[in-house]
């Protein structure tokens, strides 16, 4: 077996039910508390995926969820790894349940489904890979936040525009290394 083929078979969860359970709890925590940063350490995905992004994909994706790979994240290694571990079909942006890439590669985000008035849940969740993920940055307000929170975002305008679509809109995870934070559509975003 070639090295590349072997690589696709490795890096999954060592103990799927338990690893996925822990990963989901961190994932749920950040979605419930926009701006909070948690660790996701359970996967060993191929480059350029971060450990956190790889863990999110193993936790949430399967044959029922279309995944869009944007820009440099759309490689054969990544496709093979996703196919072997999740069976998620790789789809264009318009059909995505999940999308993965850098902010630049994912933009313009208007390509992704934002749900319908009757089914706002039929929308995409974007996993935005960052070089770093810090707490200082834009000011956040909304459900899950007692007063205000802050988070370093790639920009403010696009997220503020997304929030204006509420209850439609996209939801975001930000990943860097093994760190993860989230920004649901319900969060109002202001310059910090």
């Amino acid at each position: 077996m070639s090295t590349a083929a072997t690589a696709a078979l490795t890096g999954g969860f060592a103990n799927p039910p338990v690893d996925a359970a822990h990963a989901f709890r961190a994932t749920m925590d950040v979605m419930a508390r926009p701006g909070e940063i948690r660790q996701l350490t359970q996967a060993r995905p191929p480059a350029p995926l971060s450990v956190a992004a790889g863990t999110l994909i193993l936790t949430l994706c399967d044959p029922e969820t279309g995944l869009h790979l944007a820009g440099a994240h759309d490689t054969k290694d990544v496709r093979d790894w996703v196919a072997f571990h999740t069976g998620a079909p790789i789809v264009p942006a318009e059909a995505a349940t999940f999308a993965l890439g850098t902010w630049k590669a994912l933009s313009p985000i208007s390509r992704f489904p934002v749900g319908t008035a009757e089914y706002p849940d039929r929308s995409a969740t974007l996993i935005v890979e960052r070089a770093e993920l810090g707490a200082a940055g834009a000011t956040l307000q909304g459900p899950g936040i007692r007063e205000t929170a802050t988070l370093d975002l790639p920009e403010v305008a696009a997220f503020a525009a997304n929030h204006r679509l509420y209850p439609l809109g996209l939801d975001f995870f930000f990943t860097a290394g093994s760190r993860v934070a989230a920004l649901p559509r319900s969060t109002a975003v202001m310059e910090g």
Partner: protein
Amino acid sequence: MSVMDEYNFAYIDEQTKRMIRRAILKGLAVPGYQVPFASREMPMPYGWGTGGVQVSAAALTPDDRLKVIDQGADDTTNAVSIRKFFERTAGVATTEETSEATIIQTRHRIPEVELTEDQILVYQVPIPEPLRFLEPRETETRKMHSLEEYGLMHVKLYEDISRHGNIATAFAYPVMVNDRYVMDPSPIPKFDNPKMEMAAVQLFGAGREQRIYAVPPWTKVVSLDFEDYPFDPSKADHPCDLCGAEDSYLDEVILDDAGNRMFVCSDTDYCRSRREAGHEGRLAAETMA
């Protein structure tokens, strides 16, 4: 008790858990909106907590300490049955102490002790649609939610007032979540409604009706009312006869053939901890617990 090896951790298979987990995330992103999910047939009957059980199973880790209550009590039969199910299928630790629990699955109550940000409250929901008794059709109620058309609900509450002088809803009292969705808080007494703006994550599972919804911490949750008829979270006007608590929701117990009554905390853990701390109610001396 030994863990059942023939089933996956927490009974449900991984693909089903992922589907439930995705629904939970959408629910958190759109608080109060009912996310459809492909509820599975569980080994307990629909209407007996299958939605709550599926949500708990998707949220549990082996490190959790689970508390299960029904009517506020840990030892009501269905609470015992559900707790036993998770002991057997997930091997998780369980507790009756509210403050010790990391996940609390509940039917019809919110514990008296304020929950913390390290806790998750999972509600069992029979009918998730707050508009269901006004309009039985899902196709219609879905439209109403999409258009934020809640006039029917206000008309119903207003008709109550003109007929009875009061809003005639005492439990499952509808709330407006994050200024957008009218939501059924499950059949908790309206006394519990004000607690819903809390530090913990609240997840709602309706198995038979195939819906999951959520309220993130500190989300704005407002009980519907009118300026001249403000929401009134009242309860029986008595202290607990066992622990003397004035601030807890009470069960009424008929004591004898003459119809004498006593009132006791519905939250059994709250009552126990108060009695252990030396608080005594009217009938504390003559009762056994």
